[in-house]
């Protein structure tokens, strides 16, 4: 029965004018979205952890990026061949793999041996790998010529912004547990600033894509009033942007408690995930033929 369902769905999709992309969102495809989400959060957290020199954040970043790697492997059709993904000449997936391969060992070594010339080298390598991880996934989507909604130079910037925000959210989440000594109000301001930036960037991205071509416009329609509207409004906008920004604005009047900051961080992470989920799910392939009766 499941074979017929899959087969029939493939046939229906191939005959349809508007074909939704399913490979990177349904079934094992969801692992890729989780992997993209975690890799951004982990890489962003590593950059913040290195800046703040905060051990617990660095450790959390290593764990999260390692989990991201596992999620990527769970998505692949042939995970045992993962080591072949090194053709960095033109593939952003390969560049992301190199970034992760660079960051993880260097990060572990820096965590264990943070001092001396070796420590500086490990830190530099891990930061370079993390920076590659922050920028790679947006470019992976942007290189997808078959899905016009993603095929935009704005998307890498949006995803990098979300990665920075996710990293900061992880810092804020780890802080109450680890009792970090850095200034809370300053971090809350950065979080608010990045959240507003992400909101502006998201609005700009959707406005641009609405004007790009029919397939991209169709994806925007799916996002704002179609099959992806619920996760977009609830997850990406409501939980991910409106509530954290509202709490952040309230925090301008006076310092937020650690609990409030942790709540903002958790909501930001949920929103980060749903941003990637909604954008991936709204992707539609270029129509092969004009609309008619199939």
């Amino acid at each position, binding site marked *: 029965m499941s074979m017929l369902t899959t087969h029939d769905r493939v046939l229906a999709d191939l005959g349809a004018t508007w074909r939704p992309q399913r490979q*990177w969102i349904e079934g094992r495809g969801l692992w890729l979205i989780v992997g993209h989400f975690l890799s951004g959060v982990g890489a962003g957290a590593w950059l913040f952890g290195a800046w703040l020199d905060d051990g617990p954040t660095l450790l959390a970043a290593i764990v999260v990026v390692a989990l991201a790697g596992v999620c990527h492997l769970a998505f692949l059709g042939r995970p045992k*061949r993962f080591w072949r993904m090194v053709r960095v000449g033109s593939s952003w997936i390969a560049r992301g793999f190199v970034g992760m391969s660079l960051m993880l060992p260097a990060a572990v070594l820096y965590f264990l041996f943070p001092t001396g010339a070796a420590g500086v080298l490990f830190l530099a390598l891990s930061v370079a790998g993390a920076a590659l991880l922050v920028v790679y996934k947006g470019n992976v989507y942007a290189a997808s010529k*078959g899905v016009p909604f993603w095929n935009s130079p704005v998307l890498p910037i949006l995803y990098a912004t979300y990665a920075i925000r996710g990293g900061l959210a992880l810092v804020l989440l780890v802080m109450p547990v680890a009792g970090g000594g850095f200034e809370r109000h300053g971090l809350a301001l950065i979080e608010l600033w990045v959240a507003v930036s992400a909101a502006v960037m998201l609005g700009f991205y959707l406005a641009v894509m609405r004007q790009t071509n029919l397939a991209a416009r169709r994806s925007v329609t799916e996002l704002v009033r179609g099959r992806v509207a619920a996760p977009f409004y609830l997850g990406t906008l409501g939980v991910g942007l409106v509530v954290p920004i509202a709490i952040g604005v309230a925090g301008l009047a006076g310092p937020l408690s650690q609990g409030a900051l942790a709540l903002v961080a958790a909501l930001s992470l949920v929103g980060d995930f749903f941003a990637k989920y909604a954008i991936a799910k709204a992707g539609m392939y270029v129509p092969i033929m004009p609309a008619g*009766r199939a």
Partner: protein
Amino acid sequence: MRYGMVIDLKRCVGCYGCQLSCKAEHGTQPGVFFARVVKREFGTFPNTRLTFLPLLCFHCGDAPCVDVCPTGASHYREGGVVDIDADLCVGCRACMQACPYGARSYNDEQRAYYPGQGLTPYEAARYSEQNVGVVMKCDFCIDRVRAGLEPACVANCAARARTFGDLDDPKSEVSHLIRLRGGEQLQPEQGTNPSVYYLPPA
């Protein structure tokens, strides 16, 4: 040498012979199509028009699927044929997202055409574990071409709507047809320079 195909939409009758012969030639599983025909009906009765568009991999000269492949599994072969090395493919499906023509299929598991009854002897002979978890697509029947034969979809086209040949040779039949009938690539604005040309239906 650049292999290419010309499909005459005036001759195509939408018989699905290309799709079936391709499946027979390559032994592809349910849900995997190297060649397919999209059918659309336009207008309202009595002024209606039925249009068929046979599709396959366009073996683009500037193939986005080759650019995004992280392992080099998607590559150019002799004659500009874009092919997939199943032994190198990791099943990331980036090529499927990059292809503007939907020419690639992902084979996620071994499926039979008669569910619950196991594989038929034909399926058992043709299916390969090597092809599970990887992306598959048309290779212009390169093994047949090397043997001096036409691709299966060309050889089995009942309406002789398909012509295969060398696009770089100005004297070849494909070049002649493109010049004479105004052959056009599908969605040239994608900038992929497909090797498949369509002759207008009227």
